[in-house]
């Protein structure tokens, strides 16, 4: 019911109808006006801003920013065909893993307006306060994906998100393996978690976080120089809904191609990868190495020419650009 109300208010916005009256909603949804009012309150509790004007009715205060289930219709084949909006959650990836265990639909997308324990690699935090970003995870049950190939979903997602950002005029830099940077600062990231016994991936939970309307003052001091948001780049508040639709659509296409056997995204990733050609430092087996990032291997590994001239391919850990 709440999704239907939000969908109706979105439609009103798209048709330049300013307000939808309580009685109109009550009639359309076949409920009482007081039931409508209760639902509107519940939707507000979910973090959606709804303005009410007496004798006129209701409207969404920021229709382009609403990520509620009723507002999101990605028209995809798989990813996001089941979509759950949560006002807040510990982490969308954790929730995705819980749902995967329970046996949720393939392609389920869980989006949270706020993550209490947004996660990055190895238990690190991902700063994700309410209303400022897009934090979602999709749960995939891939067909015939060997574990050794699963990591390819990271560059695939990076390319898909890059393409969605490019559509809104933002050229993000893809730092190997999972960061989206702008101006050397972190705009977004990807965290992939898989589980499975044996050599086949049973479920993959693919998390994406993008900083959208995050201001310097919202951030803890230590993050101010390392984090950037779309609002800072574009110098205006950005509606999150269009970008979410665009990311889901792009991810849906790339993933369908991937399942069909295409590896074209690797070539695209090579073309876009910001790390290539740079001097980097990284640690492997407790030793620190320096070298120049030369190419991306077909399995997603980063090949580096070390200072001594030898080549080395790295497949895990962090790289620091010098």
């Amino acid at each position, binding site marked *: 019911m709440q999704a239907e109300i939000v969908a109706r208010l979105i439609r009103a916005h798209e048709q330049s109808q300013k307000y939808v009256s309580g009685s109109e909603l009550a009639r359309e949804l076949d409920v009482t006006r007081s039931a409508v009012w209760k639902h509107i309150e519940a939707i507000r509790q979910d973090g959606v801003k709804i303005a009410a004007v007496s004798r006129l009715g209701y409207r969404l205060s920021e229709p382009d920013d609403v990520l509620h289930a009723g507002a999101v219709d990605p028209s995809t084949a798989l990813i996001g065909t089941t979509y759950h909006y949560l006002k807040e959650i510990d982490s969308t990836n954790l929730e995705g893993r819980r749902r995967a265990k329970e046996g949720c639909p393939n392609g389920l997308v869980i989006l949270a307006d706020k993550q209490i324990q947004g996660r990055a690699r190895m238990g690190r935090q991902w700063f994700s306060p309410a209303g400022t970003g897009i934090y979602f995870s999709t749960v995939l049950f891939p067909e015939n994906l060997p574990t050794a*190939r699963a*990591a390819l979903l990271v560059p695939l997602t990076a390319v898909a998100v890059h393409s969605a950002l490019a559509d809104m005029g933002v050229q993000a830099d893809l730092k190997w393996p999972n960061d989206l940077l702008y101006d050397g600062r972190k705009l977004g990231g990807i965290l*992939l978690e*898989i589980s499975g016994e044996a050599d086949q991936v049973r479920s993959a939970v693919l998390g994406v976080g993008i900083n959208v309307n995050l201001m310097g003052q919202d951030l803890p001091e230590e993050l101010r120089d390392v984090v950037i948001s779309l609002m800072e780049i574009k110098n205006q508040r950005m509606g999150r809904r269009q970008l979410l639709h665009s990311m889901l659509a792009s991810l849906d296409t790339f993933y369908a191609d991937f399942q069909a056997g295409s590896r074209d995204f690797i070539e695209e990733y090579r073309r876009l990868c910001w790390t290539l050609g740079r001097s980097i430092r990284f640690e492997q087996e407790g030793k620190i190495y320096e070298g120049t990032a030369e190419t991306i291997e077909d399995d997603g590994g980063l090949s580096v020419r070390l200072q001594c001239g030898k080549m080395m391919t790295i497949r895990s850990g962090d790289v620091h650009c010098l």
Partner: protein
Amino acid sequence: MNLDDIQILIKALEESSLVELVWEVDDAKLILKKAAAYTPISVPTAVTGDVEKSQPEAAVSDAPTEPAAGQVVIEAPMVGTFYRAPAPDAEPYVRVGDIVEVGQPLCIIEAMKLMNEIESEVRGKVLEILADNAQPVEYSQPLFVIEQI
């Protein structure tokens, strides 16, 4: 050819893009294959006598002994970094002597920000943990020995 020569060849193979190196002199033949180059075929859940792993045939140094009957070796399903705990300050998933259930997480292997939680395929007691925390592991490298209960 002596052991040093073989080690030089292993090193050369490791740093090259080759996946296999065959060296034949007179009646001696040495075949080196790279573990990481192979897509997994299956992760053994039970004991087999299969020693034709893709380990270099010359390298025998710290290869674990064959597991006894009733013991299951959990191997790495991918190349990556082995972590015994979900976060640096967290308790390890399992310790030697712990009883684990089917589906219980044993460790994480990380590669390219893919976190792969490896689950136990059997119910049993952890007898050995064969890899060190935060160390790289190769495809099919043995990680745990579990005694089935």
